[in-house]
């Protein structure tokens, strides 16, 4: 006798319940009744499973005090609540306020162990000191006080090394670096494609694992352009500097005096680095950076060069889709996105994502969902949505420990030491190499492309 589970959705939105300072979302879920000994006999005898309806409450919005009370009430809590809270709390409160409010050892332990980036506040480490002080005052916190003190010690000790890291990122806007001799000694064409991709992946993953997921939240990252926030989210900016350095490296390697055929070989080689090696290594950051460089105005316009690029590989089709999305159907786009690993569903090795995807989604979430709901309650549903994305980032960060890549100092030096060109400079160099020509019938024109769109769509 076979048993069929009910075909209808086992979870049903039921409504909301309001309490003082909190709004709960209620869902009803049908669950099989766990077989007690009597029931088990019955169900084997009659071939049925008993279901009962479970009411599930999910905190949707609340005052800060209520959120903290909920945090301290593990019995009535939804499974991910503490993690959502700790991942996102700085969007609606400060670390020091939270220290004052918290009184429960397991929460503090999880905080110290898994979200210690909250306490990374060199040089004074105010919050960590405050926490140590709080913990020392109570007997039951003795062990935690030790944990906190150890963290404080290791934070202070690593301060020196992290300081040197902060100076390391080559932020292009701050500009002004010049080429070194390293660049002249080696040529891109001499390096094995695999090793270039490996060094890129090593550099990218090192920076990616240091990203503090919280920095990616829209409320932090979208403030990036305001002058007073210039130092915000340094870990995110470091990955973008690296991304820009890669695109710049690709562009400069192409814009040196050479024939179109020579440039075409360089393009093919970069495509091999991106398409074959970066893809194998699941380094979607450099993959995207290289493809973006090839689409940049300065490189994209090199018509003679592109004409000499081998058409054998299928990358041209992919470039077409990337360059002219209006030519392609949505399915094409999804295909490319999956291909580029924007939705990495399964991964056994390391993965370095293109962080921009997450930054956009988090910016849009921050735009579309309000911070507070009626009555000034903190919109915790928003934080739950953001947490989904942040935990994907964390998961990918963990995956990066599976990389084990050799260091090649020559290639690394070559990748890092190079002339930085502004968009204008590279555009001018590009025009020197291949001066603009008269209008030509084969050039891509967005208006004429609509006809193609029409053909594809109908």
């Amino acid at each position: 006798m076979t048993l069929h589970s009910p075909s209808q959705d086992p979870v049903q939105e039921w409504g909301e319940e309001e309490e003082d300072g909190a709004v709960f979302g209620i869902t009803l879920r049908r669950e099989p009744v766990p077989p007690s000994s009597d029931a088990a006999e019955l169900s084997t005898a009659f071939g049925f499973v008993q279901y009962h309806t479970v009411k599930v409450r999910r905190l949707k919005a609340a005052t800060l005090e209520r959120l903290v009370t909920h945090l301290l009430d593990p019995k009535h809590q939804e499974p991910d609540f503490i993690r959502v809270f700790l991942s996102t709390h700085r969007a609606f409160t400060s670390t020091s306020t939270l220290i004052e409010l918290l009184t429960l050892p397991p929460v503090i332990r999880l905080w110290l162990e898994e979200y210690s980036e909250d306490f990374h506040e060199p040089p004074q480490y105010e919050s960590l000191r405050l926490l140590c002080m709080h913990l020392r005052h109570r007997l039951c916190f003795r062990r935690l006080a030790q944990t906190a003190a150890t963290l404080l010690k290791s934070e202070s000790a690593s301060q020196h090394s992290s300081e040197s890291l902060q100076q390391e990122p080559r932020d292009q806007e701050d500009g002004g670096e010049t080429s070194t001799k390293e660049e002249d000694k080696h040529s891109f064409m001499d390096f094995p494609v695999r090793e270039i991709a490996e060094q890129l992946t090593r550099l990218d993953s090192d920076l990616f694992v240091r990203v503090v997921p919280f920095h990616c939240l829209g409320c932090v990252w979208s403030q990036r352009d305001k002058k007073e926030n210039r130092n915000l989210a340094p870990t995110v900016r470091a990955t973008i500097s690296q991304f820009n350095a890669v695109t710049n490296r690709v562009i400069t390697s192409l814009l040196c005096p050479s024939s179109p055929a020579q440039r075409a070989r360089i393009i093919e080689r970069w495509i091999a680095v991106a398409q074959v090696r970066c893809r194998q290594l699941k380094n979607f950051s450099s993959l995207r950076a290289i493809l973006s460089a090839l689409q940049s105005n300065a490189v994209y316009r090199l018509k003679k060069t592109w004409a000499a690029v081998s058409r054998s590989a299928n990358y041209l089709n992919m470039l077409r889709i990337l360059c002219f999305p209006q030519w392609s159907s949505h399915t094409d786009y999804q295909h490319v996105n999956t291909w580029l690993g924007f939705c990495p569903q399964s991964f056994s090795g390391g993965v370095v994502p293109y962080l921009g995807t997450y930054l956009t989604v988090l910016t849009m979430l921050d735009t579309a969902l309000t911070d507070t709901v009626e009555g000034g309650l903190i919109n915790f549903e928003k934080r739950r949505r953001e947490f989904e994305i942040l935990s994907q980032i964390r998961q990918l960060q963990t995956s990066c420990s599976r990389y084990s890549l050799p260091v090649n100092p020559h290639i690394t030096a070559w990748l890092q030491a190079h002339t930085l060109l502004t968009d204008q400079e590279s555009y001018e160099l590009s025009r020197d190499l291949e001066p603009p020509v008269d209008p030509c019938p084969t050039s891509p024109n967005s208006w004429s492309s609509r006809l193609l769109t029409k053909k594809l769509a109908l």
Partner: protein
Amino acid sequence: MGSDEAYNFVFKVVLIGESGVGKSNLLSRFTKNEFNHDTRTTIGVEFSTRTVQLSGFTIKAQIWDTAGLERYRAITSAYYRGAVGALLVYDITKHLTYESVERWLKELYEHADPHIVVMLVGNKIDLESERSVPTEEAKDFAEKKGLLFLETSALESTNVEAAFNNVLAEIHKKVSSKQVVRGSINAVSLNTSRAENTEENKPCCRNI
């Protein structure tokens, strides 16, 4: 989202303007927060789409916003390519965002198709009491530059539909009247500042 419904045209429209003027808010309103329902589907899709009906045609609008990506240089450099419409947004309460409109126009005309349909959008009219850019001033400017013009409130959804739909209708009008067939660039009045560089005015040399 994600269904491949039949459509007659796909128009790429870009959102530009200073940060904080509410570009993402306008987009979010127009696409009705669609990504809201299933975050997963939008991961990796850099633009939002919405299909609209215009005089019997189905038009798919792909609206590109640089949300969160402003510091990726190469990504933003290819942003304008293929765009046939642009919403140039400023904040009516922040005069500086209006003053930078001219700079944005220059950048747009340097990198986009010369026939691009541009609308000047004064956002945040819900903050009327803090207004620092008079409607007439912006309207005159838009007229002089040959831009469409509208004031909106993304917060209250005022004129958001109209802004996007007017741009799409204008693009459609250009496309159907064959105004933009190669070689007929004079049919579209161009910003005078661009005449300095005649080469830049040739439509199909623009991006090659």
